[in-house]
């Protein structure tokens, strides 16, 4: 399990737009670099990130090798209702990880 950091601002009023920030520990090995033995290090990147609110996709990203190691994403979300946010990362070598967070409305 890779370490993740998910920031969902709490206490937002209905209709307010909050910024959700997510970070995951991952090397994002490009597949273009040579290792100590001179051989290319095989590619190992995250390909896809999806954010769902109660199962409905609200934001998604397709990532390529040009995204930095430990991919960081910040995106806005309008708080219309409370619910559960699900964050999913998928990548090379069958990488898949899901985190959840609660979105509250005050």
């Amino acid at each position, binding site marked *: 399990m890779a370490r993740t950091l998910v920031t969902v601002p709490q206490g937002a009023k209905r209709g307010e*737009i909050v910024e959700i920030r997510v970070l995951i520990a991952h090397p994002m090995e490009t597949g273009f670099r040579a290792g100590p033995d001179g051989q290319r290090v095989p590619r190992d990147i995250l390909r896809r990130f999806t954010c769902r609110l109660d199962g409905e996709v609200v934001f998604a990203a397709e990532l390529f090798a040009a995204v930095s190691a430990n991919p960081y994403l910040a*995106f806005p979300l309008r708080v219309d209702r409370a619910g559960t946010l699900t964050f999913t990362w998928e990548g090379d070598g069958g990488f898949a990880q899901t985190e959840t967070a609660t979105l509250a409305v005050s």
Partner: protein
Amino acid sequence: MHSYNRPDVDDPRRRRVIGAGGALLALAIVRPARADAGELAAAIAAYTGGREARPGRVTIDVARLVDNGNAVPVTLRVDSPMSAADHVRAIALFNERNPERDVARFALTERCGRAEVSTRIRLATSQRLVAIATMSDGSLWSGAADVVVTLAACLEGDI
């Protein structure tokens, strides 16, 4: 002073060969820039299906001078009301001189409320970035930014 023993150094044929070599080298230096711009245009055309994106509405917020190409903060903004009827469906970011033209593609919904995405990217060298936004009505808009990179990504061993 070995040249005293080498009468061939002033041979005009030798001079010509050296001159031709210099011209070839100059060509080799000039060529990639044009090829990259073509590749970038081709990658964007492949993404848009050959349709032209109109310049405007898209802003790439990135430092003009980047110290470290391994992690360059980038924010993409699109001028859009983000309503159910009129919102940004996708933003794609392309580069000119990394090994691959694609950087990232974002899918937005009207639930986002605002069209603004931030991330950190790698830049192999000084180059141009182009972002293409696809609106809910299918129209395409583009924005660009030029970045100077002093320490390139992909060179260091362990990052």
